[in-house]
């Protein structure tokens, strides 16, 4: 595949704009660009074909099965895209007078109301642009809360060792120290360790439930109670909400704030790595600290206001607004019955697929799972030398996106499988068959699996060289 720059020819271009219709302003030469601007020069026909080629080398969830654990790669419905593409949304300036953007404010207010109901929260901000950004914002809520009470000693955030890596990273960014809490044998929080860890320096606990091994922590009410008793707050990492939405609410489990990944649970597309949206919801006592501006409604008229003790802004304007539009379209589609049906479907699909694999692959926990399950290929690796990586890469040859690999860190040779509710039984059956076929292959000819994938546009990239001698841009033959 040629790069854009390799397709460039001097003087090529497109007639996109008319010539300037007023006298051209002359800047002082000292203000002008010196070096020539080496942007590619390509006619539209060749530009279009370039990206068609790139698209053919890209696998999206609308192309095929994508059981990437913890990422909730569910189908991205088209009606949501249509909703967000309307000029009445795309052509709004963020600083238009509020009376000219009542529909946009109603989108934000309605999405806030529905998502607060689903999470059991009282208020929400859509400013965070992604999950990690939401975590950061949620932690600032906790920080502001303790500060407002003069409780300066609460500098530590407790994070289970199975947590997503963003949790500790976000805590650091928010100015906290991280205390790691070990998991118990069932994959849940070790209550004794938690009891020992909490204290007057505890700012809060970050928790995903169901957790990263796909299990719902049945001790959840006790866990949040321990933290609350110690004066800390409880933060719910919403990455796995698709397992339980409509079944149980973070707010009712004792969580004080939560972030959601609209680009996972609420079906907005992930765009190859964003834009996402990571709104943060919280209980009433944290609302005064939410980012500014917030939306309020009175007598059917929407307006913006600044919470009295706001943390300020974590992003410009109102966040990734069009992503919220898509999520609202999805929320309206599913509604009261559809939301719990989605989580039930997600859990059913995960258990159904796990059931077909569990006699052949080792599960990290041999109990019923929630929306995802974690396999450990340690035994296979020991017996045959075929690793989780090898199996994952072989899946590519069958048009299946591999599960999340080597996560959570507490499971060796992990493959974390999340089918989501939008996959049909026959897709799951086919995938199960592929997993079993690969296992047979691994036992019969382990060497061949190290060569996988064999049918992809490229083979396994040399990642070590990439990191040691980074080439991060085209060099123009220099």
């Amino acid at each position, binding site marked *: 595949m040629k790069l854009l720059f390799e397709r460039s020819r001097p003087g090529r271009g497109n007639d996109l704009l008319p010539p300037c219709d007023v006298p051209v302003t002359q800047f002082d030469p000292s*203000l002008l660009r010196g070096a020539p601007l080496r942007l590619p020069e390509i006619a539209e026909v060749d530009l279009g074909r370039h990206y068609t080629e790139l698209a053919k080398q890209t696998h999206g969830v609308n192309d095929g099965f994508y059981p990437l654990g913890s990422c909730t790669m569910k189908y991205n419905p088209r009606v949501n895209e249509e909703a967000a593409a309307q000029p009445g949304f795309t052509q709004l*300036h963020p600083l238009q007078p509020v009376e000219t953007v009542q529909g946009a404010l109603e989108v934000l207010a309605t999405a806030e109301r529905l998502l607060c109901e689903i999470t059991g929260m009282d208020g929400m901000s859509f400013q965070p642009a992604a999950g990690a950004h939401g975590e950061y914002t949620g932690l600032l809520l906790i920080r502001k809360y303790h500060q407002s009470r003069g409780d300066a000693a609460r500098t530590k955030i407790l994070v289970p060792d199975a947590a997503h890596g963003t949790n500790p990273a976000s805590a650091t*960014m928010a100015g906290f120290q991280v205390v790691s809490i070990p998991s118990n044998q069932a994959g849940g929080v070790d209550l004794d360790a938690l009891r020992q860890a909490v204290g007057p320096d505890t700012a809060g606990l970050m928790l995903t439930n169901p957790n990263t091994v796909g299990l719902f922590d049945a001790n959840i009410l006790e866990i949040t109670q321990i933290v609350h008793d110690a004066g800390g707050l409880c933060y719910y990492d919403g990455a796995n909400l698709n397992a339980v939405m409509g079944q149980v609410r973070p707010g009712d489990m004792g969580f004080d704030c939560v972030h959601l990944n609209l680009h996972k649970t609420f079906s907005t597309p992930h765009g190859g790595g964003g*834009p996402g949206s990571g709104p943060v919801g919280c209980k009433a006592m944290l609302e005064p600290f939410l980012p500014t501006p917030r939306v309020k409604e009175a007598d059917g008229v929407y307006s913006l206001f600044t919470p009295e003790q706001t943390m*300020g802004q974590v992003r410009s304007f109102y966040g990734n607004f069009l992503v919220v539009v898509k999520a609202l379209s999805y929320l309206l589609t599913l509604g009261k019955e559809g939301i719990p049906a989605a989580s039930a479907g997600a859990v059913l699909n995960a258990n*159904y697929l796990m059931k077909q694999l569990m006699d052949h692959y080792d599960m990290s926990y041999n109990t019923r799972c929630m929306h995802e399950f974690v396999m450990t290929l340690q035994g296979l690796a020991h017996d045959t030398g075929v690793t989780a990586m090898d199996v994952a890469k072989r899946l590519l040859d069958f048009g299946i996106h591999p599960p999340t690999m080597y996560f959570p860190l507490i499971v060796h040779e992990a493959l974390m499988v999340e089918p989501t509710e939008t996959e049909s039984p026959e897709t799951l059956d086919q995938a199960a068959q592929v997993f079993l076929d690969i296992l047979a292959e691994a036992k019969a000819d382990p060497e061949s699996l190290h060569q996988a994938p064999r049918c992809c546009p490229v083979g396994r*990239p040399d990642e070590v060289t990439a990191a040691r001698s980074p080439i991060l841009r085209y060099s123009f033959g220099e």
Partner: protein
Amino acid sequence: MGSYIPATGEERQAMLQAIGLTSVEELFDVVPEAVRVKNLDLPEGLSEWEVSQTMASLAEKNRVFRSVFRGAGAYRHYIPSIVKTVTSKEEFLTAYTPYQAEISQGVLQSIFEYQTQMCELTGMEVSNASVYDGAVAAAEAIFMCQERKRTSVVVSGAADPQTLAVIKTYCESRDVPVTILPVDGCATDPAALQAVLAGDTAAVYVQSPNYFGVLEDMDAIVSAAHGAGAKVIMGVNPISLGLLKPPGEYGVDIAVGEGQPLGMPLSFGGPYLGFMTCKKAMMRKLPGRIVGQTTDAQGNRCFVLTLQAREQHIRREKASSNICSNEALCAMTASVYLAAMGPRGLRQVAETCASHAHYLAGELAKLGFSLRSGEKPFFHEFCTDCPMDPALLCAKLEERGILGGLPVDGGILWCCTELNTKADMDQLIAVIGEVLGK
């Protein structure tokens, strides 16, 4: 209602049976009974047609202005048709972050191309794959400059207020002291900067063109900051770089900015695109995803996410940042935009923006709107006094279908892009003339 679940009721029952259950409720029997949801207060689900009608009626409750003279951080430019065509391809739209390089070369290559273009545009050596927006890019850049003995930052007060707000939030959370420089005639005073630079100054953040459209005296600023051992972070409007001197040529250490003008619609504030480029020396401090070139076993060129040792899934609490999802599709949008425009096209956009703004400033001056920035050079925004209440004037303009400049401190911050034609400007001037009774 729809839930996008293909399985029928019968099929679901059969699946339940396969896992040894009889009802969906049993799937959740691990959840404490006390907190099981009994009644979810949500509206009934709707059919696709009803949803599309509802969403259309929400869109219709907003007003789209044909003529827009407001910028202030969000800019209306022409978006070539090829841009939307490319970025609406389902493969790009519905892929996850490209962890599996073998089936993600399309996304990876496009980011590598984006990185190259942003380096070229800003005159810097290394780019990441994007962050959430321009304001966050500025804040993250400040974190990049933190050293053990240099932690405080000096920030131009003439920067975008959204950016200033985010910088404050971010810095407060990490206890980074922030000094805001005063604004003098719509610009930063290098002498004021010189006065506050200290031995613990880690970085200076200046935006140029700044919030008021003025081109700052970057040479003086860079010289002062570097002289004091501080890094310089320059915020910049990427469109201006089609014509104006890029950050790299001023010698700054990091360039950041809001990439929205590069092919993204206004969209009521998002999705937008934060870009970050830096000198090679700071490469391993750069937050976020970065794509690198390498080869596969057959020697084919290919692309991967790289330098992951910086990232949270490996470094956890010691990571350089917590960013995972960024704005990849927006980065692709910018890349297609820049490729469609080419160097001459981008220069034409920049030149036309500036020329329109200067024409409008001249016409407004005739009506008594005097420039607050005096003789300082400006790009495509400028701030004027207003001979009447700015809010009232804007309200009058809105009645005539025009979104005027942004009322700012008793004056108005005007913006022109290539889309504000001479005819549109002359109409604006005529309407203002009427309103003023001239």
